[in-house]
């Protein structure tokens, strides 16, 4: 009896000891989050990609000098402060001290210089990121924790861009020793999670970085599975093998399936992507601004949002959403007014039954429905619209850039800088790839002017003027700003949906 008691005591003591040993660890970081992402970017090197699904993973691995969180406000990242000097031609950054890369290497001014020398040099030239940072002439080390960015031209968006993909700081020694190809598949940064393993087309596994300068993550493990097919991703979510499905995966039509499952929820945030039907302003009836206005007024865009998009979108007045810098709250979309539309068409001498063609991406089921509704509305004001779906690549690489579209064509746009500059230049400047038809000296002048302005408020005013001018000329039929749609298991707590796919899982917990 005594013997047995002692045995029990020993067992209890052992259990108590064991739990004491393990408790602190599990209290700090516990739980694993499994995320379904629709695309494997193939490389984790920041200078190799523009894909938002690179960012939805890599934001957890890398940091930039600046950081833009879910509220889209620019805050210090690896730089603690900065001064814009010499009319924007030089920016001095004070760097965070005591930060180490995941491999133990120190983060310092040399690392910043190395990152940008690499981005702006031969290695960066092979990738798509370099063109975003061409305004930088060079980075100079002042001391171990201070750098100067020398600019070729003043770039009002550069601080935002430094929070962007190409501006992520990479470890110099690691890359020099291991080489670029190794770095592609074995990324090392300063971020909240460390790289563990990567299997192309299957998954990438990360683990919490307890020394993260922004505070250790609350979960210990993070896995991304690459699942392209929406139905498959949602099935994994329903089966409890995935905790979160990130955009762009879930189509509007699948929202009820998720909402119908008591273990799951749909979380949305305003997204970066705006949709419009743009006009061929060079040929045919849409050459006339009056006709373009009539076509816009003939379509009830609010009804489309409510019925086809299940309310998961906001109407827009210009080709940008409310998150975009340059957005003007005061600007209102043209009203739905079929009578006025018909009057305008008559004024322009367009006979009833005139035909227009709407070109769109053949693989976007939801937008095809939207286009069908638009076509029905146009029918009601006496315009016969035919819909022509293309394979996405053909539409984007041939039909639009070479000006071979019908009177109207689909444009969806999600500039990650969320600065109207990016969008407006691409859409309206003479000779741009996305602008095969229009050439307007006044527009070109406005677009060029705003790039030279470093005063934030003043530049915003010019951007708003550009938006208004584009709307006055009715260069496109602005449709809507689509929400970013996340499917989530209710086991996941403290998740904040982000508008720009820059997911950072430091605060998330999993029950």
């Amino acid at each position, binding site marked *: 009896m005594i013997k047995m008691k002692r045995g029990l005591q020993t067992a209890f003591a052992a259990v108590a000891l064991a739990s004491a040993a393990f408790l602190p660890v599990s209290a700090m970081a516990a739980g694993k989050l499994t995320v379904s992402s629709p695309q494997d970017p193939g490389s984790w090197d920041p200078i190799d990609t523009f894909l938002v699904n690179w960012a939805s993973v890599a934001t957890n691995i890398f940091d930039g000098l600046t950081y833009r969180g879910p509220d889209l406000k620019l805050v210090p990242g690896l730089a603690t402060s900065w001064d814009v000097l010499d009319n924007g031609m030089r920016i001095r950054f004070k760097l965070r001290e005591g930060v180490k890369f995941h491999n133990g290497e120190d983060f310092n001014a040399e690392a910043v210089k190395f990152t940008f020398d690499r981005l702006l040099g031969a290695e960066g030239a*092979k990738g798509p990121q370099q063109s975003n940072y061409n305004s930088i002439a060079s980075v100079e080390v002042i001391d171990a924790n201070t750098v100067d960015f020398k600019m070729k031209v003043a770039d009002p968006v550069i601080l935002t861009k430094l929070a962007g993909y190409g501006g992520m700081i990479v470890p110099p020694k690691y890359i020099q020793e291991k080489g670029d190809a190794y770095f*592609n598949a074995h990324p090392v940064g300063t971020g909240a999670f460390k790289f563990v393993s990567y299997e192309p*087309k299957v998954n990438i596994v990360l683990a919490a970085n307890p020394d993260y300068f922004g505070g250790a993550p609350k979960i210990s493990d993070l896995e991304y599975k690459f699942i392209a097919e929406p139905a498959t991703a949602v099935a994994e979510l*329903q*089966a409890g093998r995935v905790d979160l499905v990130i955009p762009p995966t879930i189509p509007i039509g699948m929202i009820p399936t998720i909402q119908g499952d008591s273990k799951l929820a749909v979380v949305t945030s305003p997204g970066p992507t705006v949709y419009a039907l743009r006009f061929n302003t060079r040929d045919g009836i849409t050459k006339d601004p009056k006709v373009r206005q009539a076509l816009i007024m003939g379509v009830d865009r609010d009804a489309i949002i409510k019925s086809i998009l299940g309310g998961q979108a906001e109407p827009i007045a210009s080709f940008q959403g409310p998150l975009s810098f340059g957005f003007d709250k005061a600007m209102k979309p043209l009203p739905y007014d079929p009578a006025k539309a018909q009057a305008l068409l008559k004024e322009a001498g367009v006979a009833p039954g005139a035909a227009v063609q709407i070109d769109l991406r053949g693989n976007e089921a939801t937008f095809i429905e939207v286009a069908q509704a638009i076509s029905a509305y146009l029918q009601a004001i006496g315009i016969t619209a035919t819909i022509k779906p293309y394979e996405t690549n053909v539409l984007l690489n041939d039909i639009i850039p070479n000006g071979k579209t019908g009177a109207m064509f689909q444009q969806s746009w999600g500039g*990650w800088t969320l600065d109207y500059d990016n969008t407006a230049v691409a859409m309206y400047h003479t000779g741009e790839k996305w602008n095969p038809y229009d050439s307007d000296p006044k527009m070109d002048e406005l677009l060029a002017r705003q790039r030279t302005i470093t005063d934030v408020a003043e530049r915003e005013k010019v951007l708003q003027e550009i938006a208004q001018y584009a709307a006055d000329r009715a260069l496109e039929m602005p449709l809507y700003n689509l929400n970013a749609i996340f499917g989530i298991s209710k086991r996941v707590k403290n998740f904040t949906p982000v508008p720009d796919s820059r997911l950072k899982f430091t605060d998330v917990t999993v029950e």
Partner: protein
Amino acid sequence: MEGGGSHENKGTRDLAAFLIKRLAQAIFVVIAVTLTVAFAIRLTGDPALMLTQGAGSVTEADLVRIREGLGLNEPFFVQYLHFLKGIVTLDFGRSFLGGTPVSLLIGKALPATLALAFTSLIVSIVISIPLGIKAATARGKWADQMIRILSLVGLSFPNFWLATMLVLLFAIALPLLPPSGMDGIASFILPAVTMGIILTATNVRLVRTTMLETLRSQYIMVARAKGLSENTVLYKHALRNCAIPLITYFGLQFGGLLGGIVVVERVFNWPGLGTLAFDAVGARDYPVLQAVITVLSLMIIGINLIVDIAYGLVDPRVRTE
């Protein structure tokens, strides 16, 4: 003895000639197929534009720079020769999307696809042979009618629909099996059964027809007259004589299976060649797509060769001819 030796030599020579002829055919087919693919995919889109989508204002100079980085500034035939050289040295270059070596991607995807295709074929053979024999022996009776109706139903299922239904049933309603991915034996069941059911639909009919023909032969009558049990007659005498057309068909089917696996792989997020090809087409990832097509054509050629050799194993007449 001597005669036997020379006969053997002649046999080896014949086999060598046969293999050389097949090799020449294989080279021709690979060149024809890859040349078409390489040429066609280059007509439909610019990978540099695909890479910079959503990049904001990209200038023509940027695109030229990126194309140069991808080796696309060289003339088409130079690019193609590089690719041919790659086949010989087993170095298919790097993926345009992220620069992963293509041989690494293929090295992971090929076993996944082969394993799934093979399992599916086994599933189908295991189901279709007993069912086909049953249908043949019960010709015109109730069992035959049922089997034929079921096979018609199976034939009319689109594979993506069948896949989704199986997932809904066995992964969500009854959470028994993983809905997607390749981890462990359990994950093979749903995709292999999906493919297997669709294959079975045609295979049952084939087994039934072949069996009916064989059962009419005189040696079956003899076997039955000898008083052999029905099972011995069916499985030992009849089935063995059905083997040639069945092996031919299953072999060719395996080739077709590799092509048709794309949809099933995508629905089940199977990390195989189909998924690889699907993504490569979308991204205009020339090196990956060309490599997948090359591997697939080589496999189909290889399977045809194996089928020819397998004849010899099951039918001594082919061996001596």
